[in-house]
C-alpha cells in the first residue's frame, strides 16, 4: 500500500458552511413571505414586497443552499472516489469567493427589482454570467480530478455528477439567452409561446439536473459509507441513470398543460413523465434493497434515518410528480397551493434530508472526530420532518379545496365561487403553513449548533494531536 492520498478539504468546508448560511436565508425569507400571504400588511414597499422576495427565497434555496452544498460535497466525494487530490485547490478557493459574491449580489439585485422574470432564472445577465462561470470553474475542477484519477473504475456517483455538469450548463445557458438593454435589464431572446416552452424545458430539467442527479450522486455515495453495505445493484443504478437522463428532457411541457403550447408537446411530456416513475423508483429500490438485513440501523444509526427518509420522499415525489403531469389532474391542481406543497416535499424532504446526512458525515471525517451529539441530530431530524410534513400536507389540502371550488359550477354553467371566496377558504392554511416554517427553522438551528460544536470538537482534537 502506498501512502494515503492527502485530500484538500478546506473548500469542502467553506462551501458547506456558506451553503448553510444561504440555506438559512432561504428559510428566513420563506417564513417572511409565508406570513405576508396571510397578513399582507407585512409587505414593506418597495424592497420587501412578496413579488421581490419570492425570487430571493427560491434563488437562495436552489443556488445558495443547493448548488453550494453540492459543490462542497462533490469536491469531497470526487477526491475519495478517485483516490486523487482535488485538481486545483486554488481554483476551488476562487470558486467559493465568486459563489458568495454572486449569491450576495443576487439577493441585493432581486430586492431592487432587477430580474429577468423567468422562474429560477431571474438573475439579470451580468449575474447570470457569473453563475455560469462559477459552474464552469467547478466543473473543470471536478472533471480534471476525474481525468487524473488513480482509481480506474468510476462509481455511479461520478456518473450523476458528470451528467449534472453537462446538463446544468446547457440548460442554464440556453434559457438565459437574451438581448441586454443596459447593465441591469435585458429581454429574453425568445418570445411568447416559444419562450414558455424554453422556460419550462429549463425549469423542469433544472429539477432533474440540479435537484435530482446531484442528491442521487450524494445518496449513492453516502448510503454505503454510512451503513457499511455495498450498493444493492450497480447494474440497476446504471440502467436507472441512463433512462433518467434520457426521459427527463421530454417532460418540460407538463408545466404548460392546457396552454397554447402545441398539444403534441404536452402529450409527449405527459407520457414521458409517467415513464419517469421507472428510473426514479430504480434508484429508490436500490436504496431500500441496500438496507436488506440491516434495517435495524434505522434505529441505531442516526444518519440512516436521514438518508432513508430522504429517498422515501424522493419515491413519493416521483409518484406525485407524474400524477400532476396528467392533463386531468393538472386541470385540478395547477396554479393552486398543491404545487408548493409538492415542491417543498422535494426540497425539504428529499434534497435537504440527504444533504443533512452527507454534511454530518463529511464534517466528522474532515475534522477526524465524532459528531457532537447524536441526540441533537435526532431532534434536528424530527423537527425538520414534522415542519416539512405540516407544510406539504396543509398545502395539499389547500390546493384540493381551492381547486374544487374553482371548478365548481352552477346548473346554468356559471361559476359557483368567486375567486376571493376560494382565497378566503384557504387563508387558515396559510397561517398553519407559516407555523410549519418556524418548526423547520428550529430544526435548522439545532443542526447548525450541532455542526458548529462538531467542528469545534474537531479543532480541539486536532490541536491535541499536533
Amino acid at each position, binding site marked *: 500500500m502506498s501512502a494515503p492520498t492527502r485530500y484538500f478539504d478546506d473548500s469542502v468546508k467553506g462551501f458547506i458552511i456558506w451553503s448553510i448560511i444561504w440555506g438559512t436565508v432561504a428559510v428566513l425569507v420563506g417564513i417572511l413571505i409565508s406570513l405576508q400571504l396571510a397578513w399582507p400588511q407585512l409587505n414593506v414597499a418597495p424592497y420587501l414586497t*412578496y413579488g421581490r422576495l*419570492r425570487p430571493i427565497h427560491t434563488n437562495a434555496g436552489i443556488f445558495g443552499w443547493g448548488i453550494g452544498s453540492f459543490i462542497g460535497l462533490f469536491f469531497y466525494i470526487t477526491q475519495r472516489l478517485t483516490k486523487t487530490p482535488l485538481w486545483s485547490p486554488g481554483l476551488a478557493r476562487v470558486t467559493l469567493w465568486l459563489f458568495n459574491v454572486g449569491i450576495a449580489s443576487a439577493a441585493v439585485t432581486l430586492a431592487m427589482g432587477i430580474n429577468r422574470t423567468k422562474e429560477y432564472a431571474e438573475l439579470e445577465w451580468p449575474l447570470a454570467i457569473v453563475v455560469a462561470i462559477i459552474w464552469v470553474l467547478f466543473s473543470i475542477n471536478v472533471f480534471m480530478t476525474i481525468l487524473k484519477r488513480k482509481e480506474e473504475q468510476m462509481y455511479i456517483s461520478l456518473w450523476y455528477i458528470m451528467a449534472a455538469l453537462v446538463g446544468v450548463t446547457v440548460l442554464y445557458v440556453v434559457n438565459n439567452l437574451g438581448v441586454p438593454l443596459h447593465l441591469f435589464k435585458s429581454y429574453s431572446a425568445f418570445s411568447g409561446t416559444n419562450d414558455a416552452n424554453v422556460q419550462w*424545458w429549463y425549469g423542469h430539467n433544472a429539477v432533474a439536473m440540479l435537484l435530482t442527479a446531484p442528491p442521487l450522486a450524494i445518496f449513492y455515495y453516502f448510503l454505503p459509507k454510512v451503513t457499511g453495505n455495498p450498493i444493492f445493484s450497480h447494474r440497476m443504478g446504471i440502467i436507472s441513470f441512463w433512462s433518467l437522463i434520457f426521459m427527463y*428532457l421530454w417532460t418540460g411541457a407538463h408545466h404548460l398543460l392546457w396552454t397554447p*403550447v402545441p398539444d403534441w408537446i404536452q402529450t*409527449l411530456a405527459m407520457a414521458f413523465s409517467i415513464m419517469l416513475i421507472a428510473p426514479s423508483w430504480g434508484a429508490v429500490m436500490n436504496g431500500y434493497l441496500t438496507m436488506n438485513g440491516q434495517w435495524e440501523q434505522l434505529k441505531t444509526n442516526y444518519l440512516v434515518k436521514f438518508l432513508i427518509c430522504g429517498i422515501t420522499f424522493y419515491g413519493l415525489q416521483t409518484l406525485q410528480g407524474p400524477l400532476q403531469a396528467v392533463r386531468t389532474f393538472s386541470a385540478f391542481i395547477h396554479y393552486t397551493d398543491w404545487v408548493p406543497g409538492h415542491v417543498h416535499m422535494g426540497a425539504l424532504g428529499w434534497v435537504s434530508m440527504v444533504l443533512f446526512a452527507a454534511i454530518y458525515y463529511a464534517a466528522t471525517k474532515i475534522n477526524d472526530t465524532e459528531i457532537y451529539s447524536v441526540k441533537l441530530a435526532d431532534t434536528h431530524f424530527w423537527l425538520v420532518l414534522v415542519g416539512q410534513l405540516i407544510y406539504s400536507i396543509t398545502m395539499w389540502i389547500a390546493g384540493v379545496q381551492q381547486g374544487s371550488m374553482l371548478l365548481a359550477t352552477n346548473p346554468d354553467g*356559471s361559476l359557483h365561487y368567486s375567486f376571493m371566496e376560494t382565497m378566503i377558504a384557504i387563508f387558515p392554511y396559510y397561517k398553519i403553513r407559516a407555523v410549519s416554517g418556524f418548526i423547520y427553522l428550529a430544526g435548522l438551528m439545532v443542526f447548525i449548533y450541532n455542526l458548529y460544536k462538531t467542528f469545534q470538537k474537531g479543532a480541539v482534537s486536532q490541536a491535541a494531536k499536533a
Partner: protein
Amino acid sequence: MLEKNPVIFIILAFIVIMVGTAVTMIAPFKWINDPGDRIAEVKPYSPLQQEGRDIYMREGCNNCHSQTVRTLAVDVERYGYGGGYSKSGEFVYDRPQLWGSRRTGPDLARIGLKYIDPKGMWHRKHMDNPQSVVPASNMPAYAFLNTPLDTTYSERKMKLLKFPYTQADLDDLKGKSEMDAIIAYMRKLGTDIPVKKAAAAQHLPASRINPFSDLKAIKAEALSIYARDCASCHGDKREGTLGPALKGSARPDAELFAIIANGIEANGMPSFSGSLDEQKIWKLVTLIKLGKQDD
C-alpha cells in the same frame, strides 16, 4: 469502457440529453409563432405599455398572477371575459412571456376586458390600497408606484424590441407616473383579439319577472354578494364611490338585471354573468331596488 473513460462518457451523456431537447424544445420553433399562429389584430406594446410591462416584471407580479386562460370551460368562464382561451398568436410580442405558474391572485391575461374604464379608476384605487376595494385581499399595496416614470430608455426599448412607435407615442410619456404605465399595460392585456360581443352581451333572465319581491327573506345573502362583488366600486353602504349609489333605484327590475349581467362598457361597469347565477343577480336587483338609506 464507459466506466473508465470520462471524456467518452460526457459526450454520450450530452447526446442522450440532447435527444429529448431536440424534439420538444428545438423542433417546436418550427411550429410555434409561425404565420399560421399569427393574429392580425394583435398589436405590439406602445412605449407607455411596455414601460408598464417592465414595472410589472420589476415588481414580480408574475409570482402571483398568471397570464394564460387555459382551454378549460371554467378558465374561460372565470378569466376569459368574452375573449375565450389564450391563443399562441396573442403572445408574439411578449419577451419574455409572463404566463406564471401560480394563481395566488387571479389570471390577468384578459384583465383589459374586465376593467374597461379608460381612466383605470378601479386599478388606481386597487393598486393604492387593494383592501379598500377587495377587503379580504392579500395583495401588497403598490401606492409607491405614484412616482414619475423614468423614460430614459423608453425609445431604446422600442428599437431593441423592434416595435413601431411615433413621436406622439414618446410625447405621451411626458408627465406620466409609473402607476399610469402599469395601468396602461393592464388595460391593454387581452384586448387585441376580437371579443365575442354577441355571446357576452346578451345574457338575459329566463323570465323578466323578479322572483324575489320580499327583501327581508334574502337580505343577508344579498348583502354578502354585494359586499363581495359590488362594494369595491359602489361603496360599503351602497353610497356610491367609483360607481353610482345603489339605494332604492327606480329602474325596472329587468333593466337592472341586464346591467349587472352584461355590464355597461362606456362607463366601466363590468359584466357579472360569468360569476353570478340568475338567482344571485335577482337578489341583488331586489336589494338595489328596495334597500333604503338606513341599511
